[in-house]
């Protein structure tokens, strides 16, 4: 792991809940598929265990429904989906993220402007 990857992992930790909730808001999904969709959306360094652990925690916290879908080819899949509580949590976190990223962008822009002078 290089420094950039370490940084990404550290930053991801705080927002992984939000990312997972956002993916599940699009469509119900199972563990491996959530990982794949996060990676497709540019979160390349998201770890499988992190996603699996996050899913289990959100489920335990009562933010997710879960159901098993039998599959002909492979193992049965445990699908997760948002319930009301999950949707509320997603809305709140999204707002928090929006204001946080706005503030951070502002800070970072100010820094680059300052450098330009």
């Amino acid at each position, binding site marked *: 792991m290089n420094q950039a990857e370490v940084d990404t992992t550290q930053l991801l930790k705080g927002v*992984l809940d939000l990312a997972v909730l956002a993916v599940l808001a699009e469509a119900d999904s*199972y563990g*491996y598929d959530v990982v794949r969709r996060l990676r497709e959306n540019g979160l390349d360094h998201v770890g499988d*265990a992190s996603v*699996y*652990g996050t899913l289990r*925690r959100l489920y335990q916290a009562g933010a997710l429904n879960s159901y098993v879908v039998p599959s002909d080819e492979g*193992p049965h899949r445990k699908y997760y989906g948002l319930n009301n509580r999950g949707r509320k949590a997603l809305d709140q976190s999204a707002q928090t993220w929006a204001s946080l990223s706005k503030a951070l962008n502002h800070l970072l822009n100010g820094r680059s402007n300052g450098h330009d002078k």
Partner: protein
Amino acid sequence: MTSNDQASDVNTYAASVRAALSDLPSDQADVLLEDLEDHLREISAEAGGPLTERLGPPEQYAQELRAAYGATQVNTRPQDPALRDLPRARVWVTGSEWYRQVRAFLPELRPAWWVLRAYLAVLILVAAFSRGYGLGPIPNPTTKRGLAEILAMGVAIWLSVRIGRRSRNLLQGARFLAVSANALIALVAVVVLGNMHSFAYSELIGTATPEQAPFTAAFAGGPLTNVYPYSQDGKPLTNVLLYDQDGQPITVAKSEAQTSYPVGADGKAITNAYPLTQRHLNGDPVVAPRVAFPPWPAPSATASPSATASPTH
């Protein structure tokens, strides 16, 4: 990779992850790891290749899982390497063939324990209620007491086996009590058995004069088997009667030698008249040992206690 290989790969990997998380409270671990195998199978099926290649070492995977799950009671302090390997060692031991064999065999020893615990329980009771009584591993059936002990053991064994056969399906609380009681018997028995050597020794001395007071003399060099009194000027004395501070006759340990006691006018043996007349097993009389007399100070006016008459000038 064949599907068999994949299955065993998934099982090994999952077992290692579980072992690495074995310090989590079981309810947390249950929720977290509920469908770990299914999840790993999914990855194995879609990604192909061994899981370690795809996910990294299972210990690292477990660490990531732990962090993402936010297990609060996580051990963050650096662990002793020996402790860290403990869960893995446990998995290795419990998975081994000999462990399974021992586990399968142990229940067959149950009846043996039922008998043993009855014997130990009686032994503990005897030890508790008879201080000073010679406690041997096997009761002496020629004495009343030993006979009673043997009878009690018979009854106890019968009871113990009866209890053992009926305790197959105990409730949780009762089972805990039963296990505690068994452990207590075993523990106390260890203490009693540990003291048995000295018990057995006092038994040896005690039987020397069964109808006499239980006091027997002993000294650091081993059992005292005879006493040789001398007067101050070195003359051997005979038939010196010894008594302790309570007025009880002082007797000595029975030695290999045959002792013949003088018989009193009332027909009873006098066991505290020294020196005792003793014969070796081959019939030779036991002779007095050579002794070194202490050098007395020059005779003074104050008469020292002596068997001979006070000096007269």
